[in-house]
């Protein structure tokens, strides 16, 4: 297996939006008041999240089961946007849980073998 491929930065955009070239990590779209979630089971996640958040955004640890967050977001309760540094199953589940005709727009960037920086925005 090609180690370089598995560590390459990739960009994936789903939810119907056209693929866009992602800017450098620190300029991933943020919005005032939207915390940057990170999975504290991965030591590198916090470091990536701090770079992403810069001085403007707050960090929020998100460990283990994100079921409640996922259900709330998919149902349109809570924030309209989410930003995170986690394994890919988190943004995948957040996106998949929403009704098929109301999928949020997901922008995803692979940071390393396991972690992805992502930005989800409700479009409905």
């Amino acid at each position, binding site marked *: 297996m090609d180690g370089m491929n*598995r560590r390459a930065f990739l960009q994936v955009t789903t939810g119907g939006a056209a693929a866009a070239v992602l800017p450098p990590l620190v300029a991933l779209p943020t919005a005032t008041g939207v915390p940057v979630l990170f999975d504290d089971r991965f030591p590198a996640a916090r470091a990536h999240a701090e770079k992403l958040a810069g001085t403007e955004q707050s960090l929020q640890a998100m460990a283990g089961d994100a079921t409640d967050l996922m259900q709330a977001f998919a149902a349109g309760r809570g924030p309209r946007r989410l930003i995170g540094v986690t394994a*890919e199953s988190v943004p995948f589940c957040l996106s998949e849980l929403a009704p098929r005709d109301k999928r949020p727009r997901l922008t995803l960037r692979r940071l390393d073998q*396991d972690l992805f920086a992502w930005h989800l925005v409700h479009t409905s």
Partner: protein
Amino acid sequence: MTPLTLPPGLTEKDFNDALAEFRRIVGDQYVFTGDALSAYRDPYSIEDDSKFSTPAAVAPDTAEQVQAVVKVANQYGVPLWTISAGKNHGYGGAAPRMAGTVVLDLARMNRILEINVDSGYALLEPGVTYFDLYRYIQEKGLKLWLDVPDPGWGSVVGNALERGIGYTPYGDHFMMQCGMEVVLANGEVMRTGMGAMPKSNAWQLFKYGYGPYADGIFTQSNYGIVTKMGIWLMPEPPRYRPYMISFQREEDLEQVIDVLRPLKVNNIIQNAATLRSLLLVAGINATRSQYHSGPGPIPDSAAKKIMADQDIGMWNFYGALYGPPPLMDVLWGITRDAFASIPGARFFTPEERRHDNDVLKHRALTMRGVPRLTEYSFVNWVGGGGHIGFSPVSPINGKEAMQQYIMVRDRLAQYGFDYLSVFAIGWRELHHVIELIFDRRDPEEKRKAYEVFGIMVREAAEAGYGEYRTHISFMDQVAKTYSWNDHAQLKFQQTLKDALDPKGILSPGKQGIWPARYRQGG
């Protein structure tokens, strides 16, 4: 924009005319084309996506709309692939088996039609998810439990029709199904069992009705579209006590299964308990790269470190007790004594586990019917991971479980994949569900996953182990492994198909059953 793919024999004019009719039936906003169809892809496809592409999706809201859509589909010869929640991930998700099939999306049909607490059942439409039903029961304060698969985001009806499983005493979902309403390929609607008797109030109470038992032919099949289904719900027990038993050596599998069998057959183990491999448990909270960066399956040294870090065994049994405390104490005494015969066996309750994210704490929820998404984390074992399920069945027999395990472990290792699995203990059988995890952005990994999966299907069948369910990429191959008496079963299934759906519009190719018009080259 992706070019339009139509099924063989359908002209673009007929497709567009049918689409216009669909729009008239369900409304413009519920017929989907173009970019919206990204929601109907298999996110874990290990083949070229175009093989399973759809040109449109239509989402009806009522059984009457389904009937009308089916009649139009018949008129124009448009094949329809039925989904409910479309969360059949690992088996194809929402994607159709045959390119060009229009997806019939039943997610809008999400009404909970009835819940009867005294008799313990619900009557549901296919769009009701486990999360929906659980929330409803909690909000109403009903003393009923669900049985949920893991993850729990799918359709209650859809999962039962796929003969999926859960983890309470009601874990065999199709066994707990009772009565259905079906729209047939000619647009007629039928009710099965006692539902065929007008004014019957036993539709969700007595499974079999009168005459041939039809419900089974609508599971894992393409003979009709189920628009309502009854399911039995477990009364909330007086008490509940989950537990975990870990076993330290790989070779313990044989003895564990042989100890399990009489416990299960005699109903000492009350629920659909599971025996999970080291890495399936570990993968909920850790990733492969945290333990091993080289190619190939993880070495023994890494396995030992995982065992120490997470305090789990090479095999981990998750079970639960249900009932009044005196009953639970007796059952636990028998269970514990039986498993204590295995050297190194360790027994835990959730309170005794160190970490907040411990898998026993998660399983404690699923074994009491609380739907969660925690289990989905196992796909992160391989970064950017997707999964496809290989699911052979065997007796509850230690030698056979060991034979299956070694066969699969070694074949996966040959291709560089780790072994992650669960043995789900059924009434008389083991479902050995192996999760083949691969990096879904790596074409070479996908190619290897496809190749090794096909080899495992063949080798398992040669040893007499058939799959209970499979991915759309392998439905034809698996159907052909059930070949007793010159494929008598498949010929029977095709005969039924031709009789019930002569135009071949319902889910062509599902489970390897093709209508006559596509049979030679679908």
